């Protein structure tokens, strides 16, 4: 059943009786060719690509809770392709391209909105970094431009340019924007389900069955499920799931809090990043201001944060936009980040045959969703890395071919 405006009108006159489940609730089969652990955006996108692009037939996605209950449902919904290191520039530009065609591909409106992403700078060094980034983005073929304060003032008249850290300009990435995070999960789930992928919710992985260095399947709260290949795509739980397979990873779990205000009439048109304040903001279609900042900075597996970051994010918000002072904060939440030791992800095979890993996305997981899904599907199906994911190897920490965009070194809490 296809979704369309016509269908919506037809169903309006039909008492909505015609709508079918967006995905089924199947019982697990004894065996699958490929099991993807993790029913978030990445896992479901992987399943979608396995079924649509790589012709795989017998696929399951297992999810310990409800689909989208991890970071896919707890992020600040930003989609952008602005990276400085060429492997990342290529990857994220490709991802933005996939976002642009996602709605037609999935027949699901994820409300991808290219309203423009702005990164402010405060001095010449930051400005030059922005030139470097936008130059490499332009060389990749995506967009990027530098704005001076005059143009910025026109876009954001209520921005405070003369706070503690005066704003001297910004780069604008017009193709950047936001999307409705839950819809991405549902869209991929529906698409995968329509192609026969079994989505197994409330199915928690409790262990791997591994013999002679080869994975045979997974133990779950719904019993053993056999598989030829298993892909792990569990974001904040990467270390614990890999630990079940006896693999230590260069990944730690940290908390990133985000905040949303009450619904307000539109006042922040695009997405703004305030480097000096470790703060970013956008406004959802529903009118809520979505605010975010730094990690809580200690290892944590609790999906909740504490007051210091809560406060520092809002201090920055009010500093950048003094008018926000009279808006009200509605809700705070915390997501588990899989922070890697160089700030970038891994899409790779593991020392165990048939076991593959997609993790370590740090802050960049949501925007990577389609490209990560495609690359991981490629790896799971062909057993060869996707061209774009070749630099995302697990052994780069050992060899030193790191992808440290921020130059923070092996400090996951500062990435």
């Amino acid at each position, binding site marked *: 059943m296809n979704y369309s405006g016509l269908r919506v009108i037809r169903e309006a006159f039909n008492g909505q009786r015609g709508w079918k489940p967006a995905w089924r609730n199947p019982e697990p089969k004894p065996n699958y060719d490929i099991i993807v652990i993790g029913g978030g955006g990445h896992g479901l996108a992987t399943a979608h690509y396995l079924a649509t692009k790589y012709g795989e037939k017998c696929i399951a996605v297992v999810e310990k809770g409800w689909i989208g209950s991890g970071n896919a449902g707890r992020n600040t919904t930003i989609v952008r392709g602005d990276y400085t290191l060429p492997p990342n520039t290529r990857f994220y530009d490709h991802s933005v391209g996939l976002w642009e065609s996602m709605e037609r591909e999935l027949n699901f409106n994820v409300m991808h909105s290219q309203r423009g992403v702005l990164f402010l700078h405060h001095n010449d060094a930051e400005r030059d970094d922005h030139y470097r980034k936008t130059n490499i983005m332009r060389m990749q073929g995506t967009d990027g431009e530098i704005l001076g304060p005059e143009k910025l003032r026109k876009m954001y008249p209520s921005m405070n340019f003369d706070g*503690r850290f005066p704003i001297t300009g910004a780069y604008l990435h017009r193709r950047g924007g936001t999307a409705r995070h839950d819809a991405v999960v549902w869209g991929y789930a529906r698409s995968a389900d329509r192609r026969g992928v079994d989505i197994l919710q409330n199915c928690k992985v409790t262990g791997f069955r591994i013999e002679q260095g080869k994975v045979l399947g997974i133990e779950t709260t719904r019993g053993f499920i056999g598989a030829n290949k298993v892909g792990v795509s569990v974001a904040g739980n990467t270390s614990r799931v890999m630990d079940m397979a006896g693999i230590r990873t260069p990944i730690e779990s940290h908390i990133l809090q985000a905040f949303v205000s009450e619904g307000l009439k539109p006042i922040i048109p695009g997405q703004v990043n305030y480097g000096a304040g470790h703060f970013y903001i956008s406004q959802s279609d529903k009118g809520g201001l979505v605010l975010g900042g730094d990690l809580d900075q200690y290892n944590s597996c609790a999906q909740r944060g504490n007051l210091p970051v809560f406060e520092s994010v*809002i201090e920055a918000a009010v500093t950048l936009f003094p008018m926000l002072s009279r808006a009200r904060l509605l809700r705070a939440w915390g997501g588990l980040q899989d922070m890697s030791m160089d700030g970038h992800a891994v899409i790779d095979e593991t020392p165990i045959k048939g076991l593959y890993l997609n993790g370590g996305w740090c802050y960049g997981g949501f925007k990577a969703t389609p490209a990560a899904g495609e690359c991981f599907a490629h790896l799971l199906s062909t057993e060869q890395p996707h061209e774009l994911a070749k630099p995302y190897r697990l052994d780069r920490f050992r060899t030193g071919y790191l992808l440290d965009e921020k130059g923070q070194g092996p400090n996951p809490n500062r990435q």
Partner: protein
Amino acid sequence: MTQSNRLNGGLINRGKPLNFNFDGRAYQGYEGDTLASALMANGVRFLGRSFKYHRPRGIFTAGSEEPNALVELRSGARQEPNTRATVAELYEGLVACSQNYKGSLRYDLLALNDLFSDILSAGFYYKTFMWPAAFWEKVYEPIIRSAAGLGRLSGEDDPDEYEKGFLHCDLLVIGGGPAGLMASLTAGRAGANVILADEDCRFGGRLNVEQEDVGGKPAVEWVEQAVAELTAMDNVRLMPRSTAMGAFDHGIYGVVERVQDHLHTPVEGKPRQTLWRVYSKRAILCAGATERPIVFPDNDRPGVMLAGSMRAYANRWAATPARMVAVFTNNDDGHRTAVDLMAKGVDVTVIVDARLDAPTLTGVRLISGAHVIGTKGRHGLSSIRVRQADGREETLACGALGVSGGWNPNVHLTCHQGGRPVWNESIAAFVPGQNIPVGMSVAGAAKGLFSTEDALRSGAEEAVAALESLGIAASALKLPRAVNSAYNLQPLYHVPHGKGRAWLDLQNDVTVKDVKLAHQENYRSVEHLKRYTTLGMGTDQGKTANVNALAIMAELTGKSIPETGTTIFRPPYTPVVLGTIGGRTVGKHFHPTRETPTDKWAREHNAPFDTAGDWMRARWFPQPGETHWRQSADREACNVRKNVGICDVTTLGKIDVQGADAASFLNRVYANGFAKLAVGKVRYGIMLREDGACYDDGTAARLAEEHFVITTTTANAGAVLRNMEFARQCLWPDMDVQLISTTEAWAQYAIAGPKSRELLQRIVDSEFDISNEAFPFMACDSVTLCGGLRARLFRISFSGELAYELAVPTRYGDALWRRMLELGQDLGVAPYGLEALDIMRIEKGHPTGRELDGRATALMLGMGRMVSRKKDSIGSTLDQREGLTDPNGLRLVGLKPVNQSEVITAGSQLVNETAPVHIDSEQGHVTSACISPHLGHSIGMAFLKGGDQRMGEIIRVVDPVRGTDVKVQVISTHFFDPEGGRLRA
């Protein structure tokens, strides 16, 4: 308009009438009113529009759970959207407007949405607006956006002040109803430090709104007595108008005090609101309970409200929503509303009780086993349709309907650390589970104990238990006599009969049908239901909606409510003004500011400043006639190379390193060797991270055998000390080494240029020989200046000239700076700022933060040989990894344009001479660039792949953003005086 719906009695001060204005009309209320009660008293029922269908909305509750009565309070820069009229205290001159409409409140153009509600069902937007691709941003989204949202921000800077603070207590009592007051009295009398916070301006909770006796007197009097006793205790802090918004780890609570929201304009210098971070040893949650409605068709008209709230308006505020009201209930509590309103002279048409065995009540018609199945009234309720147990239906006129579906304990704060409430069948509600925040206990209605007697008792008991765990002996107080009424609820969440839409979430327009659709489409987990339908995502967070929705989903799936899921809550409990969370550390005070010793002089001379961490640093010192920064910076740089310049370099971190093992310690934290540095000498050093990247550089001066002072970059001063402390305490705990920062203890000035020695000789006291022979390059010593001022002198150079750094006690910094300018006038002395400093260091190829970017290794920086392989130092193992020693990896090189009139820009990318401008041909990037006033052309420092092997090669610097493409030659980074003759002069 007169106060047509004002009743007798109440806790309002009729002696103090207050004028206010709503939607442009003038009204009068009394001190003690909320905006909602005053509007109600004035007969105003229609207050706003719902989010999606723009249906008329009126007052639904009497508290912070209000989903409907949202207004824009105040005007101008103080305009405050989405303010709940039910908690906005009335003050003289209050101005408020309704919100979320196009046109006028009564004739809202967007009310058209309601006609298309079948199309705009839950999640409809996910299924449409996909074609054509470009239309989303241009057509669909702008329409959706402009219709969405509720109130408006003014867009102006908020003129009010906010503040944050910290409080400490043994016991935090959250909520000042019967349970909270008893808990506070118990703990207060035991001598514990107690904080009692309540969101209301009056303590007492439900006791303020019920007609009942406590301790043999009217409840309100008992409350007043209790509050008086608590007020008299030094160990008790009473915090009215204070909402505990969040429970955080280790007993920390965020409490928002609305200090001056009840005033027209805050008093100058005092905050509008304060966010208190309360550090509690124990806390008792006495947050009461929130009534939930029964859901039935067309239940959203203004006039339909919670029964307990209707009673609260009558008893506390002496206001009724109408002169003729009805009640719809499934429990005995609903009957109290009828009784109390009748006692106030309000005509109660009927009590519709869903229970077949409802107790009878004299003086009012009661229909047992019946349901309300519909309503009428365009902008407010005019009648209800009642269906009796036998199926007969009748229409009954009434202007308001009080609905009671039971009470939900306010468990919110018990969930803030991941706790899950559990279902209690006997009261058909969620109560706190086992996993509540450490140190918290729950009492009263928040625990599901709904009678006053139980609330009082549990408050006292929980306080005794909490204090006992702190080792404070407390005895249970004698309980005042109080009502112990039965509640007798027979669960009913929604009425199965009737036509039309039945609203669950009144703000977000989520109906029973939407839940059914979510179920049909398999959005069945509670979170999917919420996210798909937007249920509970309004400003009220579904306080009155969520349980009913859950019950309906449970019905549809055939599971029990606890099997279906629980609703959990995240902070804040009620929405919190952003300004309050920002406090005072916003705007110019967002971060504290560090001033250098020459700050005052620089400001006197109109220097523009740059921020460097918290420091403010002068960029250049403009002279008359200079209009562009380069004129000033070039002049300053040229003056250094020609005469002498002085520059404030105080911001460089300084760490005093002492101890018997000081030298061997430095040998391990610097990559290069320090053990053999002679006393009286300075050496340049680089520090690596353990992963091999070079993260800081600076100098170390050996002042004595066991005493060094090292410098760090401005940006890394804190990190270097932290890392050195880590090495000292965690890696080599037995090394005898002591560290302390002396950054601001010394005003440190660079004195650079061929005439720098001459200038210095005029300052340094004559007994110190600073000739080239006595004080050569890289020497250091203690000297005195200007007749005995203790100082440290280092002969080091960042500019490439003969140069010194001179450090004096900071309090003399300003005077010394002025003195040097005075004494060096004939030498042509001039201050130079950051820009000239940068020009000269690029000319010399010295790296700064732009090159030390956290990825660069010593090898990449051309300092590979500095990393000693003969000793252990941090980072000296992993920097030898393949990826960091790859001969094709990036190397720092110098660039100069082939055509000297062309300009190299920092942030440009490098490509080979004939390669396309494409990411696949990128060869590196330019880190720093300037137009060298001494060489007369542009120069740049760049990281180039395999750069050390490519000297002399012609490549291109491309900058697609600025549209330049410049041929350059790869050269050494030592652009100026490569032999270094000048600095040894």
